[in-house]
């Protein structure tokens, strides 16, 4: 039985910090007779063959010369995933070539690594499926990725605390019910990156920032309803050509909101990437 590679959930920061690639040797086949897959091992020990990411597409460029090659930046609260779609990903290429930025998307794809001679390393996603999503799914993805990243940080802390390495560490983690795939990843990552407590703390801070970006659940509770009201109003007003900012303020005022509250709410929406300003004075909601 050939098992499908799981789509890892991780923030762009952890992904972009990854530079350790494991190629299976050509004659190496796994016990089922299938070919062993390629992996990128992250500093936290994720073994990434496939990943699932959600975020805002902020830039799309066609960088191909002979053939189209679309490069997109998919931004999460910690950084950007780079997605390349060329002639062998026709559906994703068509999707990117026709979409408007910014918009929320989800991407499923294979992790790719590019190592030019000079020692630098670039990771990217080769998309299998890419689709438009709503802000709700994006928020949930952040929560999923945060939970799973914290699980990895906890497992890694355990590994560091044990002071073990190699097969002894492997045994130790398996006995503590860490999933096999992650245990392999941690042993490899420790050996390659020498990931230390500082790095774990840094990623923990990243996770905290990402979770905070969701907005709810942390103080500041008055602001949320205002933004929601404005967003709702913008959706009502938008007939496809965008919303006149001045008009928005007049209508929102007529509904009993103070001007400074309206301006603050719009600024927040802009900052969060929920809406954007295609032209000065015109707003558009990210759908």
């Amino acid at each position, binding site marked *: *039985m*050939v*098992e*499908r*590679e*799981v*789509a*890892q*959930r991780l923030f762009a920061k952890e992904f972009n910090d990854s530079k350790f690639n494991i190629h299976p040797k050509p004659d190496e086949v796994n016990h089922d007779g299938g070919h062993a897959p390629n992996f990128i091992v992250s500093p936290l020990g994720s073994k990434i063959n496939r990943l*699932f990411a*959600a975020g805002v597409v902020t830039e799309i460029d066609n960088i191909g010369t002979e053939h189209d090659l679309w490069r997109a930046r998919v931004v999460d609260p910690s950084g950007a995933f780079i997605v390349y779609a060329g002639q062998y990903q026709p559906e994703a290429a068509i999707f990117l070539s026709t979409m408007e930025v910014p918009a929320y*998307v*989800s991407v*499923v794809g294979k992790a790719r690594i590019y190592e030019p001679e000079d020692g630098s390393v670039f990771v990217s996603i080769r998309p*299998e*499926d890419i*689709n*438009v*999503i709503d802000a*709700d*799914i994006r*928020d*949930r*993805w952040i*929560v*999923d*990725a*945060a*939970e*799973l990243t*914290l699980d990895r940080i906890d497992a890694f802390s355990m590994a560091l605390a044990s002071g073990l390495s190699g097969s002894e560490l492997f045994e130790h983690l398996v006995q503590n019910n860490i*999933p096999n795939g992650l245990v392999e990843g941690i042993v490899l990552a420790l050996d390659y990156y020498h990931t230390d407590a500082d790095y774990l*703390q840094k990623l*923990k801070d990243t*996770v*905290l920032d990402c*979770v905070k970006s*969701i907005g*709810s*659940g*942390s103080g500041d509770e008055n602001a949320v309803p205002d933004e929601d009201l404005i967003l709702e109003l913008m959706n009502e007003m938008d007939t496809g050509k965008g919303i006149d900012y001045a008009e928005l303020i007049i209508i929102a005022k007529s509904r009993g909101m103070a001007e400074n509250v309206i301006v603050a709410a719009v600024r927040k929406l802009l900052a969060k990437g929920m809406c954007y300003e295609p032209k000065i004075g015109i707003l558009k909601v990210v759908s």
Partner: protein
Amino acid sequence: MNNKLAPHIEELTKALESISTNIDESQIQEELEKLLDFRVPLDEAKRTIIRKYKSASMPVMKIRNITAGLKGFEVTGRIIDVTEKSVNLRGKDTIIFSGTLADEDGACSFTAWSNYSLKIGDVIRIKNAYSRSWHNRSEVNFGERSHVEKLPDDVLPSIDELTKTPVKKLRDVANTDLSVSSVTVILEFSHRNINVKGEEVTIVEGVLADETAKLPFTSWVPLDGLDIGSTIRFEKASVRMFRGVPSLNLNDNTTINAVDASTEELPFTFESANMVPESVPISEIMEKDGMFDVIALGNIISIRPGSGIITRCPDCNRVIQKNTCRVHGTVEGVKDMRIKAILDDGTGAISVMLNRELSEIAYGRSMVEAENIIQKAMSQDAVFEDMRQVLTGKYLAVRGNTSSTEFGVMLVSKSAWMPDNNINERVNALMKRLGNNKEEEADNG
């Protein structure tokens, strides 16, 4: 030539002696010569022979850990029963021996492809055994290349001890149980007529549950006076495997007694046993050969080809193309809609099947609307493409039974829904986790 080969044969015999004592030098010579006749290089030929007789490592297995498709392991067990069978093997009549082998915590069937004069009650150690799937269970096989050795009788408990039916909670019933006893409540109960060797028989099918799990059951004896909600104590129900899930068979050997739940104290009630299960991480589902009544929750990361509007044979329900069934010839196909999706939660991935009704819920369009899409687009693929656009990336929760197939683990859904968004709760839990961790570190530092 023989002289030249002699040192190599000696080398091979030596290398193989350590694992199997019944290796015969002339046999090795014969095989080596045969390979050389095919002009296989000598080193390669030696490697082939060593591989044939020896697996790289020979793990010692307990019966309950044996899964189908293992090669070259060692297992010890007592023979519970054994029968001689004559089979036609590649045109040759061969006598094989099959029966049941048990150790302290499991039992399985076995097939011996050579005569080891096995007798009921023998304790044997088999080296270089292999396993395969037989009647949805794993079966130990051994033959020419295996080494069988009789052990002293006191290595394992007696037959009576080994075949005693254990009292188990349903969660612990496994494919190495031949029979079990337990106390359970009946959650589902229905009669069905089936044809057994030309005779019409009424059987009872349903679901039993306790506080740990639910399992399907089949009763070959009438269960008069029992119905949904009845609590029963049964002894010696035989255990069958179906799609990786144990199924309890109540038959003439089973004693079944109604339990008065109002007087006897039980760790479950009908209500508590019948509760909607908690969702399970997909990694956990993938570890099992099959699970009964589970909920999985994740992102739809791919809609597979074969989803959308399909045509089925009216007689056998097979999916057909161009109104031609491979069994029933040209037929008037029946339209149906389904979704095959990959559900992934970051811990694992399973394929999920949704029937027409559940597809309509997940997709948000009825089959009639979907057929209109096809007509408008004049393309059979239009619905598949539309489903991909609507569903890829979305969250979905499904409830049903899982089984492990050669294409991975599959869940056939009995219900499907868009799961609740309990984001605030989870964000708060995360904040706590992040905050608490920090405090701990501060304490440590």
